[in-house]
């Protein structure tokens, strides 16, 4: 795998095709678990591990798994990794296990993980698929953690459980607040992304124009 390909995969996973803010996938856990920053980072780390391992495993088995049963096979593989994460969290971080609740087993049918398995891991080499899983997971983890920080700070007056101010608006910890913050994040992220992309386009257009005029001269 070349450095250029590696950079492309990293950029796709974290920015260009950010699963939460660009593709709007995995909305259910994003809305439900971004109540606190700690929940966000916990869920993010769980998804990074599962996505990296399942992508690598699916890519490894892609030539063996018949096309007709690929979805049940993907679900079996993902479910195995989700169960491992559940058991590890229950044993070593019970507080996080309790707070992630039903959303942890629901990772099995998370659109991000199934989506990457179907669109990337089943068509690419093991290393590329593992990196794709890692960076897509990082993109999800960053988005859900940032949302958690904002919602916890405005809704509970703390960040990662540490008291920062007395201002509290319970709206931000409610379901309506989750939709509001999520919408705001998508809007801000896409506004920044579009403006950067437009600048890059303008820059490359000017470079092309300059090159053409030099050629003409």
């Amino acid at each position: 795998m070349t450095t250029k390909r590696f950079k492309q995969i990293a950029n796709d996973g974290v920015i260009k095709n950010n699963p939460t803010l660009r593709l709007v996938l995995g909305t259910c856990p994003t809305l439900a678990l971004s109540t606190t920053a700690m929940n966000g980072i916990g869920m993010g780390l769980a998804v990074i591990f599962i996505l990296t391992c399942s992508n690598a495993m699916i890519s490894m088995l892609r030539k063996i798994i018949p096309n007709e049963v690929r979805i049940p096979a993907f679900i079996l593989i993902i479910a195995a990794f989700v169960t491992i994460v559940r058991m590890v969290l229950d044993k070593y971080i019970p507080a996080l296990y309790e707070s992630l609740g039903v959303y942890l087993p629901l990772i099995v049918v998370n659109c991000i993980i199934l989506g990457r398995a179907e669109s990337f891991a089943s068509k690419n080499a093991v290393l590329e698929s593992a990196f794709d899983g890692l960076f897509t997971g990082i993109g999800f983890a960053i988005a859900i953690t940032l949302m958690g920080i904002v919602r916890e700070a405005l809704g509970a007056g703390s960040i990662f459980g540490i008291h920062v101010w007395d201002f509290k608006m319970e709206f931000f910890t409610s379901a309506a607040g989750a939709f509001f913050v999520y919408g705001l994040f998508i809007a801000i992220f896409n506004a920044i992304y579009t403006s950067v992309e437009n600048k890059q386009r303008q820059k490359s257009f000017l470079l092309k124009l300059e090159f053409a005029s030099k050629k003409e001269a």
Partner: protein
Amino acid sequence: MKVNDFLKSKAFKSVMVLMCIALVAGGLLAILSDVLYVSDQERIERAINTIYGEEISFEELELSDSDKTNEYGSIDNVYLLEDENYLIKATGLHGYKDGTVTVWIVAEYDKAEFLGLKKVVVASYEKQTLMSSFTNDFYKTFYDSKEDVIGGKYFAVTESENNIQNITGGASKSSNAINNAVDSGLYYVRNVIASDGGEI
């Protein structure tokens, strides 16, 4: 279709691949579940740690059938702690959609004299959807009302002569189940522990 044709068919290959994945994953998970098994004892220690913030030794008390149920709900487990307090896991009835709420209660004692409730922590609940509406202030009511608790009163959502008024936290039926869970624990304290030698 002949046996040979079936063995070479895509259907057979699909079944075999799925079976192999399931067997390998199942085997791996079986080994890991043995390694990462969390015993009941460990879960109780965790619960005590959450409530107390420190490790403390305890002894589980046996419950007779008559002790296990009362008009408010049921008593799931009772532990006598090293510091002479009792840790009671009690379930309250009549929540939202006839669901239940289970709580851990610390009944505080000093030389067999009941001093009130020291802590109330929710362990689990069924069919209750607005449990997050109950903030810490709601549970504080239980251990701040020491005089009423020692005086023999029970908790309830609405005020009446024999009840202690309780805030609802935006979900009165869930509040009812939480109150019943605490009352179930209090019933045990007043009727079982007291008759066994503890004073009220």
